């Protein structure tokens, strides 16, 4: 690994801080991802692995969804010494791109939302998605965003509805982090409100 675990992971962390404190701001993990050797990724993207290296250690637990879930769990465990557990007990849930339809919804449903007294004990879901680009398919608002910001994420399914349900009783809820194959990162903490612009158009027509 040419990756420098001190400096390059600090850089990944700061990008995660930037994107989480300014939802809709896309961070580029390309530079750090290029430093990971190909053989390190047992079926998961380099940016997903970077995030695992940045956040995981023996003090936290995780779970992987996807066809290569077991291999990736083994890999992450070997690299970070974090323990793989059941979905509802995991601090971090990783979704591989091939996990397929419905898996993000499934993960959102099963993830630990924390409690009113300890909302920080909730899970973070980190998912490989289709292209993340600037756009206006989804309109985001909430802390970190001055009025509104638009974003495009190639991701089918009714994950937005499931997320709304899960985050209904703030401060409990789950935080989402998306990465695409070009190592673009989007963070959607639970405070971010998502509106599908199709709905906005519908309202407009009516």
């Amino acid at each position, binding site marked *: 690994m040419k990756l420098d675990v001190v400096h390059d992971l600090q850089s990944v*962390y700061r990008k995660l801080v930037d994107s989480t404190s300014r939802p809709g701001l896309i961070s580029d993990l390309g530079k750090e991802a290029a430093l990971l050797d190909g053989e390190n990724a047992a079926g998961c993207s380099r940016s997903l692995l970077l995030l695992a290296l940045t956040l995981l250690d023996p*003090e936290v637990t995780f779970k992987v969804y996807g066809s290569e879930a077991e291999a990736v769990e083994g890999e992450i465990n070997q690299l970070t010494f974090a323990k793989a557990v059941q979905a509802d007990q995991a601090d971090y849930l990783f979704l591989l791109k091939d996990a397929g339809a419905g898996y993000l919804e499934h993960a959102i449903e099963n993830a630990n939302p924390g409690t009113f007294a300890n909302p920080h004990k909730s899970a973070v879901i980190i998912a490989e998605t289709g292209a993340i680009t600037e756009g206006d398919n989804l309109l985001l608002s909430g*802390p*970190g965003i001055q009025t509104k910001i638009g974003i495009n994420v190639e991701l089918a399914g009714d994950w937005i509805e499931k997320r709304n349900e899960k985050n209904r009783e703030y401060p409990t809820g789950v935080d989402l982090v998306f990465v695409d194959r070009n190592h673009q990162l989007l963070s959607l903490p639970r405070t971010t409100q998502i509106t599908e612009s199709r709905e906005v158009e519908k309202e407009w027509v009516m």
Partner: protein
Amino acid sequence: MINAYNFAFFDEGSKREIRRATLKAIALPGYQVPFASREMPIGRGWGTGGLQLTLSLIGREDVLKVIDQGSDESVNAVSIKKLVSDTTGVQITEHTSQATIIQSRHRIPEVPLKKEQILVLQVPLPEPLRYFESSEHETKKLHAEKEYSGAWLMLFEQIMKYGSMTTGADHPVMVHGRYVMAPSPIPRFDNPKMDENEALILLGAGREKKIYAVPPFTRIVSLDFEDYPFEKESFDGKCCRLCGSEGVFLDELIDEATGEVYYQCNDTSYCYEILNKDEKAGVN
């Protein structure tokens, strides 16, 4: 740079734990996230919470500014700067606008913060409800239930006693309509600066082992009553004796020779910048 230390003093495991807590804090504006505060080679109560945040954030490209009650040159600020600079080699600045990370005790700088900056505030007492509730278990419950009548009562009692809200520093704020938060002992003058700020604000309490955050563009409302609205310290009709600035937080000083009262910017680097600008303008 001393190579015997880890980069940024901490081992990577310590940084990771602080980083995880920080990300949670950003996702839960105003909520106090517990973390395993580390022993630091500076005295507790000297900003170890802020220092731990700074060390977990900092990278080689960062430019750091440290201020203590408005001053870059206080013993406390200097020792923090020395520790960070010795273990990272990062550039240190006194110019607010040039810093990427600003660690501060008791003030938010006068120069408006920008998008590229992170303000780290040192916090001695993170729990705004501690004044009337000594049990951590109980205050956690009050936050969980959004039961803040005690906080309002505390302010009301002060009004009854003094005829106004004489909270001085650390006047409690409501964050994103959910959590009552201690803004750290900044003067009331600085409270409005937190509201919809451009920069991320992170707050760290070392002794109490808490990290909390105010993301950029987050609604911050100082607690008050309709009949007794929140008011910041007023410096109407006063200006800095050195640079002439108005509308900034001023320290009241007494001229020992004449016994006369005069005022000076509390934010000394701001004051120097204004003075230098005037000098340059004078030359041209």
